[in-house]
Structure formats: structure tokens, C-alpha cells
């Protein structure tokens, strides 16, 4: 029965992931703000969610595996495969960035053209630069097997990707809003004490829940690991039987 429950939950959760990120992106796309009014947002946000999600998990996983001594269960191969997914989704996100630029030019809408030119070369060029470097360029080093099987490189890249995805949200929200149709509305963003407090607080709250979970529940579902070890141990069993 528990297998059936897991199966139905997986079937419900997969479309939920797509729907949640699609709808979040619609919150932007249904507005008429140049830079937000984009039909590529749903797939772009879904790819970005997988990308940043894997990077976040990679960061926590590398630490947890060391702290809880799970090296024999979470192997280097798991980390390598996650790195490959980070590389692929990073490239998809990169394609989305370039498509956005192309469509802004191709649409012939001067507001869109200005929004994207200003995004890349205006006063917030540095945010766009960090977003591009951290999200699109940095995961490309995972093409090299030596680098993607290195724990230190994986850890650094996962942190860099997390920061890059923060810059992506910063670019989407701040650079689209700091210019408006009225010159009197042109402004620069300066975070208030509360903005910074919410940001730090959200990290603290996340870590609180994560550490409470890690403290009170098994970090790895042991019963599931046993059944997987069993099936991957089949070869060993055949070998043992043939020697008897």
C-alpha cells in the first residue's frame, strides 16, 4: 500500500511543480510592464526552478553527507549526475535569457526594446552581468569530468548558482520597475531595513526548519535504501551463487 501511496503522490506532485511555477510566472506575465509581459516566462521559470532547486539541494547535500557521514549512501556519482542536471538546466535558462533579448528586438515594440537594452547596459548592468555569469557561464565548467566529480568545485558552483538565481529575481523585479512610462517615476532601488530583515529572516527560517527536520527524522529513508541496495546487490548474489 505504501508503494501505491508514493506513486499517487508522485503523480500529483509532478504536475503541481509545473503548475506552481507557471502560475508564479503568470503573475508577472499578465502585467503590462515591459520586461515582465513575456510568454516565455512559464517554461523559463520551470527550468529556473529545477536549476536553482538542484543547486540548493547540492549545497545542503554536500554538507549533510559530510556531517552525517553518508558517503557510502550519497555517492560521488549522485553528485556528478546532479551537476549534469545543473549544467543542462543552466543552459536552458541561458537560452531563455537570449530568447527574451531576441524577442524584445524582434517584436519591434520600443518599450520592450528599451527595457532589455536598459537591463543589460543601464545602471543595473552589474546585476545582469552577475546573473549571466553565475547562471549560464559558471555551470558550463561541468562539461569537464574532473571538475564535476570534485566536491569542492561542486560546492562552490552550487553556491554561485544560488547567488545567480537571486540576481535573476533581482533583475526581473528591480530593473523592470526602476524605469516607468513617466520620467517622474524613474528611480533607483534602495532596500529598506525591513527588506534586508525579511531576506535574512527567510534564510534563518529555512535553516530552522531544515535543521529541525534533520535532527528529528532520518536524513535518508532507510527502508528505501535497503530495497535499492538489495536490487543493485543482485549481481553480487549471482556471482556468489555461481561460486558455490
Amino acid at each position, binding site marked *: *500500500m505504501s508503494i*501505491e*501511496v508514493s506513486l*499517487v503522490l508522485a503523480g*500529483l*506532485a509532478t504536475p*503541481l511543480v509545473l503548475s*506552481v511555477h507557471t502560475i508564479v510566472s503568470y503573475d508577472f506575465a499578465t502585467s503590462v510592464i515591459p520586461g515582465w509581459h513575456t510568454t516565455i516566462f512559464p517554461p523559463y521559470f520551470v527550468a529556473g526552478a529545477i536549476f536553482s532547486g538542484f543547486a540548493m539541494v547540492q549545497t545542503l547535500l554536500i554538507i549533510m553527507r559530510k556531517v552525517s557521514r553518508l558517503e557510502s549512501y550519497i555517492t560521488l556519482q549522485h553528485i556528478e549526475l546532479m551537476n549534469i542536471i545543473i549544467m543542462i538546466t543552466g543552459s536552458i535558462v541561458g537560452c531563455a535569457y537570449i530568447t527574451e533579448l531576441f524577442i524584445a528586438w524582434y517584436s519591434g515594440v520600443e518599450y520592450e526594446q528599451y527595457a532589455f537594452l536598459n537591463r543589460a547596459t543601464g545602471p543595473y548592468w552589474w546585476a545582469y552581468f552577475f546573473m549571466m555569469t553565475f547562471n549560464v557561464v559558471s555551470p558550463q565548467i561541468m562539461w569537464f569530468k574532473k571538475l564535476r566529480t570534485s566536491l569542492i568545485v561542486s560546492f562552490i558552483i552550487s553556491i554561485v548558482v544560488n547567488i545567480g538565481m537571486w540576481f535573476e529575481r533581482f533583475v526581473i523585479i528591480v530593473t523592470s520597475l526602476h524605469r516607468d512610462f513617466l520620467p517622474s517615476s524613474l528611480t533607483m532601488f534602495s532596500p529598506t531595513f525591513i527588506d534586508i530583515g525579511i531576506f535574512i529572516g527567510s534564510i534563518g527560517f529555512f535553516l530552522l526548519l531544515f535543521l529541525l527536520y534533520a535532527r528529528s527524522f532520518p536524513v535518508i529513508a532507510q527502508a528505501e535504501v535497503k*530495497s535499492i541496495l*538489495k536490487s543493485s546487490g543482485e549481481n553480487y548474489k549471482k556471482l556468489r551463487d555461481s561460486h558455490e
Partner: protein
Amino acid sequence: MSKNNLHVLFDDDDILLNAIKKIKEKKYHINEVYTPFPVHGLDKALGLKPTRISILAFIYGCIGFTVAVLMMNYIMIDDWPQNIGGKPSFSFIENMPAFVPIMFEMTVFFAAHLMVLTFYMRSKLWPFKKAENPNILTTDNMFLIDMESGDNLNKMKVFLKKTGAVSIEVIERDDSEK
């Protein structure tokens, strides 16, 4: 003659499955099987009925969908209609597309949570419940069949050893309970 219960230990799930097939062939009664992880094909070997939990999940989903429709109709149409972006919300049909995400998410929410709760209730599990394993080894690497001994204990022991049992423990059944 009073029958005893047997706790038969195995150290491999393939041997366990074969043993269960042989025990079933001989028509001996199995009370319960304890394993350290979900063994594929065990439910079929024991002749358990397929679970109906996915039917329940569908019903729970339908309940969630209905709750979402009624909720959004009450909030956005009946109780407090608003004119959002030049689109007044006086009719459910016309404003329904904006409620689709809520309907979908409430469907998933109800189906997932109620299904897991049902699973725990049917498995008689709740927080801080004491484990019912007769042998603590079944949480590590051993598989245990709890079965009735039949009339001839020695014959049974020989038969079980042949199926690959590691150890057989006779549990005296307390008849005073009945």
C-alpha cells in the same frame, strides 16, 4: 490439541517469497509477515487484495475540487464581488478561468493529505506509537513470518528448514486470552 504460533526468520527476500509460496501451497495459515523494507510481490504471494487507496485518492480529489468551487464562488462572486482590471466578478462562469489554479491546487491538497492520513489510519500508525515488531531483527536485515504451527510441529520444522528458514521460534499461544 492447541496450536502454537511460529516465528520463522529468513535472511533474504527471494528465499522468503519462495517459502511463502510453498507454505501457501500446503494451505498453512500465515498471520503476518514482517520485513525491513517493502518487498515487491509480497502482497501477491500472500494473496492480499489490491489496495483501493487510489480510488479513495480520486474521491478525495473530487471533494477538494468541490470545496474550491464552492469557496471561490462564495468569496469572489456571492460575498464580495469586485471589479478587477475592468473585469467585474458577478458571474462564476465568466470568472472561472481565474479560479482554475485554485481548483487544481485544492484538488491536489485534499487528495494528497487525506490519502496519507487514510494510509496511516488503515495501517494503524500514529505519532509516538510503540512498534509491534515481534523481533527487532526485522527492522535490520531479517524477514519474519508469523504463522500457525499446524498439528505436527516436528514435520513443520523440517518443512520450513527446507524452504530456507534461518531459525524457527515456537511461541506458546496463550489460550486464556480467548
